[in-house]
């Protein structure tokens, strides 16, 4: 391997030829014969070159002290051992890197000569240090411990990492294997424990995730916290402060940043570039922590570095490296390297017989590192330009970069200015519920009342569980299954009907998308929507900026560039919910729903290609589309991840099948099972339609959750092959940039249109010529073909919305009118039915048969609506400058599409809709009717003079109740009621009854459009009074303090009060002698009550109570008995028309049936006779009654 590199360095072979040689198995004809010959001899080594190169670079940079976490994993296998230098590079077992590739030689060979093949030069160190603990002795050292630790933390969730020893020599690297691709920040705890690490953790911030987020479009959601990764980092904490990084508050963190900033200011008052002063680094206590200045003039062997950078870049560009981000990360580490550890003399000694070109270390100083990094970055500018805005800014502001390549810096700055890809701030994840939508969630969407109410409860249990999880999942010792499992299963157990399952799954899926759409788990803060990190910090906070710079340039310890599949943050809740629910039905419905949603989102119309750079200005539409694209992509990845999780859940296990036979039988079985979603077809479709940029990311998420067997199944193997091909040959996507890979299928919609026209054509075929329609379709196609895509989208959007609004409008007008008709018909029917005793079910049928035919109007009205509304909407949404002809065509098409949508729905559903609404209205009315007689119709409002200061009904009922209770007793000796209080109370009752709060109805009309409809309807019926404000019927809907139940109770209480007055049972407060109400006062109060009953109550007053045995019986206790007030009251009732003479006679008559003391019964009979005997006009007789009263014991005794 080194031979190839050496040939390159000696310029025997050109870089281009070398890369061609590496990338392609067949030699291309363009190769120079000499080069070909040189390379041909090395043919067997071709596959090992890239691993060799990567390891070589890692090893060469081993003395670099980076700003951030340690450098990425080393590639296993082809160690960069140089010929004749069996010891390898000068490392004393201090590296933290594991190998990037698995060993490429058979284990036996590895065991024979571990140090010679890959060990590098070690001094008394154990074998196989760099292989991630594969060798038997690896446990001795940190790397081995690290890999074990990783395995431990990962395996429970890992979907089978086939990192088995049996792996074939040429297997593709397994990117999900943490042993081979550990998250970059992970530091071996053992390594740190055995010796002081040189690695420096830039900022041990526990809240780091809130500031540095993964790039939304490129990487998998990161692992939020990796157990075991942090403690080792702490040991090397440069701040000399002990507390665990995870425990530090942001405040402490800020303080640390401040201190560090001041230190840095002290140590390097001037920028290291462009005028570095030799020896400017002061040997201070913290001197070793500051970055050494880098100077382009001090770069050694410039040419050699350039060449290696070129080869390395070519490998990256050709997609030969396993992970682009891993390499970028490595390069950024070189760029930001703090310093080089001094090499031991022996390390630098040239060994005899070794070629110069590879003999001296590639990176001899920080200057070399920076130079190399800048070289690579220059080659990778295209990729860099797609980084997020924040990172671009930091890169562009990097002083070393400016110093080494002002040109690159300029390009980066330009890219930064043009970039819209911001990294959002992760807001603390807060749960927001899926909102209730009547269209999908109301009773009409459920099979039964029971299902509806069950789901109502389930929704609440779901959120209760979610809130509890939110509160407790971070508590140590809290366990999801223990805490919530049984509750979840109990809830799932209630989901009996299939329809309930689909409702719940819809809720679950929506909540999942809502909570987890952004990588941090917070909803809504996706690309470009959150405030820029840098702007928020403020440009003057240089110290922070520097740290931030480091932070962004160096991915954090918790999330590397190639994290394994995980369920960070809120996703964990949904994963655990699925596991705890362990419901087959739920999983099946969930898979159905996820598949459907994935298909739906995957067919999203992709944004059209980036506007050409010459324009200079970025298209507004395009930015919106890009944002939408990002949202859709995130959603798809999330959904696919969960689909993969659920789909492969039954097959997942910790271990691969133990024997070949078992594996074969499993394979035979599994190959019969159809895939949950035909992802291969979707991928192929995506490739054909040039939509891979959307399809591949979610597909990868889906596959990352696959079990051990999946990669061996033919179906999935073909997908993996396809993906590998894509990875290697992205040019097969026929694109040159990430965004330009995006091609959208503009014909798709037009095909749909064509189909529609074709259907219309079939229907119309008798009258129209097919040819004409086809021409029409072609014209429409042609019309959109030459218009900007936004026009098509606008028309489609308008048609969709107007069509939908049309249906809503018909519901609110035509259907609502029919329902009102039904109500009035029903009212009539009910009256007759009461007499005839009909059946409400039949009634409904009659109503429906009368009303449903009116539904035919819906189509006409719908057409009118679409005709009227669509053009305006199209006009408003298209640019002002749209040519008139184009506008008019667009309007016509929108009208057509909207009408089509609305009329299709209406013709299919209007009858059912009317039926449903009428039925609901009927049952509502029947319920409202109840056993009680309907309230009186003549509801009135306040008089104009009313100031609405009447006491509240509740207060009055309470007050009257108190009077009643004092009267009924038992009471304390000092308790009583003053006559004034009684009069005041009855007066207040009048006020309350007269204040009907119509003052707000006008407001109500403004606020509530349905009030307007009602008003219009009542006005149309002609039932409004002259003064305008008192519209009958409307009052029933206007807000009143006095509600019918309260009024009914007031009426009843007032009658009870009257009974007590008549029987003189109210204890009066006053001078000691006076304990009874004066007759005049009592009569005055009765007059007031009579007037209220007659004029102010709007509910029926239960006056017959006055003549019930209990109330009349109150008189029995009084001595002497005084019947005059009762007689007075009865006559007034008749006179005021409150009760009929006959009605009273009937009541009096029935009183005889009760058991009374003999004398009382006699007196009662006399009263009856008196009432019957006395003619109407009662005034003089009443007086007579009154006059006889004081002298005789009782009125009746005299008569």
């Amino acid at each position, binding site marked *: 391997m080194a031979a190839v590199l050496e040939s390159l360095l000696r310029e025997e072979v050109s870089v281009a030829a070398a890369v061609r040689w590496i990338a392609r198995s067949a030699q291309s004809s363009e190769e120079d014969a000499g080069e070909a010959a040189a390379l041909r001899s090395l043919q067997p080594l071709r596959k090992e070159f890239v691993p060799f190169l990567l390891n070589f670079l890692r090893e060469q940079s081993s003395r670099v002290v980076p700003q951030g976490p340690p450098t990425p994993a080393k590639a296993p296998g082809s160690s960069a051992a140089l010929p004749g230098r069996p010891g390898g590079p000068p490392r004393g077992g201090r590296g933290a890197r594991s190998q990037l590739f698995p060993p490429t030689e058979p284990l036996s060979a590895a065991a024979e000569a571990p140090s010679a093949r890959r060990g590098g030069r070690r001094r008394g160190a154990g074998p196989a240090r760099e292989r991630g603990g594969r060798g038997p002795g690896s446990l001795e050292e940190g790397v081995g411990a690290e890999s074990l630790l990783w395995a431990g933390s990962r395996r429970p969730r890992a979907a089978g990492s086939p990192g088995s020893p049996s792996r074939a020599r040429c297997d593709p690297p397994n990117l999900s294997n943490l042993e081979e691709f550990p998250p970059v920040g992970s530091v071996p705890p053992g390594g740190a424990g055995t010796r002081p690490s040189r690695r420096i953790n830039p900022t041990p911030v526990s809240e780091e995730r809130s500031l540095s987020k993964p790039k939304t479009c490129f990487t998998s959601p990161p692992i939020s916290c990796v157990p075991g990764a942090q403690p080792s980092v702490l040991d090397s904490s440069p701040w000399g402060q002990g507390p665990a990084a995870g425990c530090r508050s942001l405040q402490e963190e800020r303080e640390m940043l401040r201190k560090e900033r001041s230190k840095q200011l002290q140590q390097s008052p001037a920028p290291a570039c462009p005028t570095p002063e030799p020896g400017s680094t002061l040997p201070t206590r913290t001197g070793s922590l500051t970055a050494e200045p880098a100077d382009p003039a001090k770069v050694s062997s410039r040419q050699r570095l350039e060449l290696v950078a070129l080869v390395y870049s070519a490998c990256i560009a050709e997609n030969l490296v396993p992970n682009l981000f891993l390499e970028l990360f490595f390069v950024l580490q070189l760029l930001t390297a703090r310093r080089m550890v001094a090499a031991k003399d022996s390390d630098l000694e040239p060994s005899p017989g070794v070629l110069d070109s590879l003999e001296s270390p590639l990176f001899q100083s920080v200057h070399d590192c920076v130079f190399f990094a800048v070289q690579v970055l220059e080659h990778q500018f295209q990729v860099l330009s797609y980084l997020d805005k924040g990172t671009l800014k930091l890169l562009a502001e990097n002083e070393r970069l400016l110093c080494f390549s002002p040109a690159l810096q300029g390009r980066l700055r330009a890219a930064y200015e043009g970039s819209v890809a911001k990294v959002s701030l992760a807001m603390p994840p807060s749960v*927001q*519920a899926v*909102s*209730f939508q*009547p269209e999908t*969630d*109301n*009773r*009409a969407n459920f099979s039964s009342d029971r299902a*509806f*109410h069950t*789901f*109502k409860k389930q*929704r*609440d249990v*779901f*959120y*209760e569980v979610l*809130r509890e999880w939110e509160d407790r999942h971070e508590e140590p010792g809290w366990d999801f299954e223990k805490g919530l499992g049984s509750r979840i299963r109990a809830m799932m157990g209630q989901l009996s009907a299939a329809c309930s399952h689909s409702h719940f799954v819809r809720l679950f899926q929506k909540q999942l998308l809502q909570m987890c759409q952004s990588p941090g788990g917070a909803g809504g803060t996706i690309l470009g929507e959150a405030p820029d990190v840098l702007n928020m910090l403020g440009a003057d906070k240089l110290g922070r900026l520097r740290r931030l710079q480091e932070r962004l340039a160096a991915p954090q310890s918790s999330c590397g560039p190639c994290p394994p599949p995980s369920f960070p943050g809120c996703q964990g809740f949904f994963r655990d919910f699925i596991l705890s629910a362990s419901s087959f039905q739920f999983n099946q419905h969930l898979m159905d729903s996820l598949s459907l949603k994935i298909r739906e989102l995957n067919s999203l119309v992709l944004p059209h290609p980036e506007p050409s750079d010459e324009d200079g200005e970025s298209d507004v539409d395009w930015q919106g589309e890009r944002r939408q694209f990002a949202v859709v992509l995130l959603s798809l990845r999330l959904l696919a991840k969960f689909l993969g999780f659920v789909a492969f859940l039954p097959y997942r296990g910790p271990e691969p099948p133990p024997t070949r036979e078992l594996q074969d039988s499993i394979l035979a079985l599994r190959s019969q099972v159809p895939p949950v979603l035909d992802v291969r077809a979707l991928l192929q479709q995506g490739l054909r339609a040039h939509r891979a940029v959307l399809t591949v990311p979610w597909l990868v998420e889906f596959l990352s959750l696959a079990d051990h067997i999946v990669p061996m199944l033919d179906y999935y193997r073909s997908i993996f092959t396809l993906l590998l091909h894509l990875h290697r040959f992205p040019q097969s996507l026929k694109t040159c940039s990430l965004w330009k890979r995006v091609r959208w299928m503009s014909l798709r919609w037009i095909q749909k249109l064509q189909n529609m026209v074709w259907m219309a054509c079939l229907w119309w075929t008798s009258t129209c010529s097919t040819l004409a329609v086809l021409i029409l379709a072609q014209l429409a196609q042609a019309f959109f073909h030459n218009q900007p895509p936004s026009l098509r989208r606008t028309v489609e959007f308008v048609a969709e919305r107007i069509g939908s609004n049309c249906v809503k409008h018909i519901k609110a007008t035509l259907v609502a009118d029919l329902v009102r008709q039904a109500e009035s018909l029903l009212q009539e029917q009910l009256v007759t039915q009461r007499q005839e005793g009909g059946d409400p079910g039949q009634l409904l049928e009659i109503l429906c048969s009368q009303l449903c035919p009116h539904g035919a109007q819906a189509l006409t009205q719908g057409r009118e609506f679409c005709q009227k509304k669509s053009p305006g909407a199209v006009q408003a949404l298209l640019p002002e400058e749209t040519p008139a002809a184009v506008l008019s065509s667009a309007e016509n098409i929108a009208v057509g599409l909207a009408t089509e949508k609305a009329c299709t729905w209406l013709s299919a559903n209007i009858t059912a809709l009317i039926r449903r609404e009428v039925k609901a209205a009927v049952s509502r009315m029947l319920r409202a009717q109840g056993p009680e007689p309907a309230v009186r119709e003549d509801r009135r409002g306040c008089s104009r003079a009313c100031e609405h200061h009447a006491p*509240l*009904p*509740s207060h009055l*009922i*309470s007050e009257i*109740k*108190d009077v*009643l*209770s*004092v009267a*009924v*007793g*038992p009471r*304390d000796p000092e308790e009583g009621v003053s006559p004034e209080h009684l009069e005041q109370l009855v007066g207040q009752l009048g006020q309350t009854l007269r204040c009907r*709060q119509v003052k*707000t109805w006008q*407001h*109500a009309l403004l*606020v*509530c459009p*349905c009030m307007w409809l009602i008003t219009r309807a009542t006005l149309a019926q002609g039932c409004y009074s002259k003064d305008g404000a008192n519209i009958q019927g409307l009052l029933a809907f206007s*807000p*009143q*303090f006095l*509600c019918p*139940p*309260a009024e009914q*109770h007031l009426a*009843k*209480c007032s009658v009870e009060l009257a009974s007590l007055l008549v029987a003189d049972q109210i204890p009066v407060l006053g001078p000691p002698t006076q304990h009874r109400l004066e007759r005049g006062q009592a009569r005055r109060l009765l007059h007031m009550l009579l007037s209220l009953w007659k004029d102010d109550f709007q509910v029926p007053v*239960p006056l017959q*109570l006055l003549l*019930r*045995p*209990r*109330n009349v*019986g109150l008189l029995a*206790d009084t001595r002497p008995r005084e019947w005059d007030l009762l007689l007075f009251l009865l006559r007034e009732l008749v006179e005021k028309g409150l009760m009929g003479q006959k009605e009273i006679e009937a009541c009096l008559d029935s009183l005889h049936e*009760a*058991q009374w003391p003999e004398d009382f019964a006699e007196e009662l009979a006399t009263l009856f006779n008196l009432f019957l005997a006395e003619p109407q006009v009662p005034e003089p007789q009443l007086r007579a009654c009154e006059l006889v009263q004081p002298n005789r014991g009782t009125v009746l005794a005299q008569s």
Partner: protein
Amino acid sequence: MILTKAQYDEIAQCLVSVPPTRQSLRKLKQRFPSQSQATLLSIFSQEYQKHIKRTHAKHHTSEAIESYYQRYLDGVGKNGAAPVLLELANEVDYAPSLMARIILERFLQEHKETPPSKSVINSLLRDPSQIPDGVLANQVYQCIVNDCCYGPLVDCIKHAIGHEHEILLRDLLLEKNLSFLDEDQLRAKGYDKTPDFILQVPIAVEGHIIHWIESKASFGDECSHHAYLHDQFWSYWNRFGPGLVIYWYGFIQELDCNRERGILLKACFPTDIVTLCHGAAAP
């Protein structure tokens, strides 16, 4: 009237084994003159209801019913005009209206062939003048008008208070030009859970987003608040997002702990309202 838990406990302590009569209420008002009457009554009523819930079962054993009925018969046998039933209720520490129900039910069982239905009993309690026995009718009526915590009259008062405060809240919303959907409209649309008002455009109150407002014409104590949270407030949150609860008669301060989570408590209509369109609402 927002009380601390300690203040509330002090009031509640005074209510142990106090009969729900107007005399008790009068004493309570004298004991805590600084508290509003409505708040005191609400606390009294809720504490008493808790007490009844705890002891309800023991009054409904057949032995207890028989013993009460016998005592009633003995009592009215001696003097039908004496407050026999009311005194019996107070003596055994049970609500007079509920005691009236027990005795009425037992009475009807004895005098009718079929056991009386619940609706018949309710209707007789609403209108005792229809009770066939004149003495019992008077006794029942006396219990009902003397009971501050139970019975059809108290139910009606509570209902009326609730309704009035909803109207009050509606008027305040209209006054502030905040458009809303009320409970009836929501029900007509088929919502499965209906707060009193859903704001068509959310507002911010004291920095918290508000989508819905629920009016509670009672004091928010721990027990009722937790029941409301479980049955109503969280359900509203689950469907409509964060919202505001107004406990017009106050609440225990410590219960207002879900503000960040999306349930804000107030004892009056908020003044610090920010609307989407106009900034701070006009006072």
